[in-house]
C-alpha cells in the first residue's frame, strides 16, 4: 500500500544533504511550509541554495535559516523587503550570494524544472540590467533572455488537504508557488493542514497528483497571520 505519510517533521526532513538546492513555496506567508523550514533548521543541512520568493521577513522561517548562516545562495524576486533584517546584515558582510529573478521568471524557471524543459527564452528582463551576462536573442522583434530551469534536490510545500498517495489541494491564495514547487523537487516534502482519505479528493479537484510527492506530514498549524497595514 502506498502511504507517503510520515509521523513527524523530523522524519520528513531526514536525509537532506549539505549543499542541497531547496525550493521553498509560499507567498506573503500564505501557503508557506513554515514547519518544514523550521525542521530544516533543526535538521542541520548547510551550504544550501534556497529558492523562495523573498529573502525572508523578520527573524523567522527562511530569514532564520539565512540568519544561522546555513544558506550559501538565495534565489528570489524580493531581496530587500519590509523587515528583511537578517538577510541585509549577512549580505552586507558578503556572506551570502544573491540571484535576483523577476517573479514570473522565477515561477517559470521552477515550472520548467518540473516539466523537463532545461531552458527557455522570455521577454521579461529583455533590455534591462537583469539581462547582463545572459544569452539574449531578438525574437519577433523583442529582446528575449535565455533562462535556465531550476530544479530542487528538495521541495518544501504546504497543502490544505493531502491523502496517502500525496494528492494535494490548496486553500485560496495558499496555492501560489505550491503546485509548481511540488513538481520540481527530487524529494518533495509536504506539510498539510488536513488529512483526507484516499478518494475524498476527487479526480477533478486534485491540483497536485501524488506522483510528484514523496513525504507528507500532518501539521495543523492553522491560519496564517493577519496583517493589517
Amino acid at each position, binding site marked *: 500500500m502506498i502511504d507517503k505519510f510520515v509521523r513527524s517533521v523530523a522524519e520528513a526532513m531526514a536525509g537532506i544533504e549539505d549543499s542541497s538546492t531547496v525550493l521553498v513555496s509560499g507567498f506573503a506567508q500564505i501557503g508557506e511550509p513554515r514547519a518544514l523550514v523550521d525542521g530544516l533548521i533543526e535538521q542541520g543541512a548547510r551550504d544550501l541554495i534556497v529558492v523562495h520568493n523573498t529573502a525572508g521577513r523578520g527573524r523567522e522561517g527562511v530569514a532564520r535559516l539565512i540568519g544561522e548562516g546555513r544558506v550559501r545562495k538565495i534565489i528570489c524576486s524580493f531581496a530587500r523587503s519590509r523587515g528583511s533584517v537578517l538577510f541585509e546584515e549577512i549580505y552586507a558582510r558578503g556572506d551570502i550570494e*544573491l540571484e535576483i529573478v523577476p517573479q514570473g521568471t522565477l515561477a517559470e524557471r521552477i515550472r520548467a524544472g518540473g516539466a523537463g524543459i532545461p531552458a527557455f527564452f522570455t521577454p521579461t528582463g529583455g533590455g534591462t540590467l537583469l539581462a547582463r551576462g545572459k544569452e539574449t536573442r531578438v525574437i519577433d522583434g523583442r529582446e528575449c533572455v535565455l533562462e535556465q530551469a531550476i530544479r530542487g534536490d528538495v521541495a518544501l510545500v504546504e497543502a490544505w488537504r493531502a491523502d496517502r498517495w500525496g494528492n494535494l489541494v490548496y486553500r485560496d491564495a495558499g496555492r501560489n508557488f505550491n503546485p509548481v514547487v511540488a513538481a520540481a523537487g527530487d524529494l518533495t516534502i509536504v506539510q498539510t493542514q488536513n488529512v483526507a482519505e484516499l478518494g475524498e479528493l476527487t479526480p477533478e479537484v486534485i491540483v497536485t497528483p501524488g506522483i510528484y510527492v514523496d513525504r507528507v506530514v500532518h501539521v495543523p498549524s492553522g491560519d496564517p497571520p493577519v496583517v493589517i497595514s
Partner: protein
Amino acid sequence: MPNWKPWTREELAVRVARDIPEGWSVNLGIGISTLIGNYIPPGREVILHSENGIVGMGPAPSPEKLNPWLVNASRQHVTLVTGASYMNHADSFGMVRGGHLDLCVLGGFQVAENGDLANWSRSENDRAPAIGGAMDLAVGAKRIWVVMEHTTKGGEKRILKRCTYPLTAKNCVKRVYTDLAVIDVTEGGFVVIDKIPGISLDQLEELGDAGLRSETGVAGRDGLR
C-alpha cells in the same frame, strides 16, 4: 508659488478607475495603484488579477469577513467577487506574460517619451533590489498605465526624454497619470490629454524633461508649437 492644486492620491485613483472600461482584465500592481480597486464604479464589471494567482479580486473585506488565506500581491487582505478563480504562480504569470491582461497599472520612478519605464531600482549599484513581478507585468500586459507623482518630493523630474534609472522594461508605457496631468505616450512622444485646473502646458513641461503636446494642439520643445 504655483496657483494650482495637485490631484490627491484618492482623486487620482478615482480618475484611473473611471477610465477602465467594463470587461477589461486588469492587474493593479503593488503600492498606490492597488487603491484603484476600491473606486471601480459600482456595477461595472472589471476583472482584477493578482500575481499570486487570483482572478476576480474584490475590495478589502470588513473585519468580520476577513479570510486570512486571501491576500493580494501587496499582502493586503482582499475578497473575491462572484466568478473568481485561483491559479498557481506559473499559470498566473503565464497569463501576464502571454498578453491576456488588458491593462496593468504600475507605480513609476521615471517614464520616458519612448515608453521606457523605470520603477524598481534607483541605481545600477543597488545590489539587492526588490524586483518582484514588475518586469513580467511591464512586458506582458496589453497596456501599461503608470501612476506617479509628476516630480519627486525633492523636485527631480520623472517625465523624461530617456530614463536614467535602470529600466523595468522598454517601450511599454501607454499612459501616465500624475498628480498634475494625464499624459499618453504615443509614437510621436508625450501627449497631454488632461491636466489640473490652473496649470499651463508650458508650466507642465517645465516640470519634466521631455516635450509635451496637448491633445487638441501641438506643444513642446520639438518646435512644432
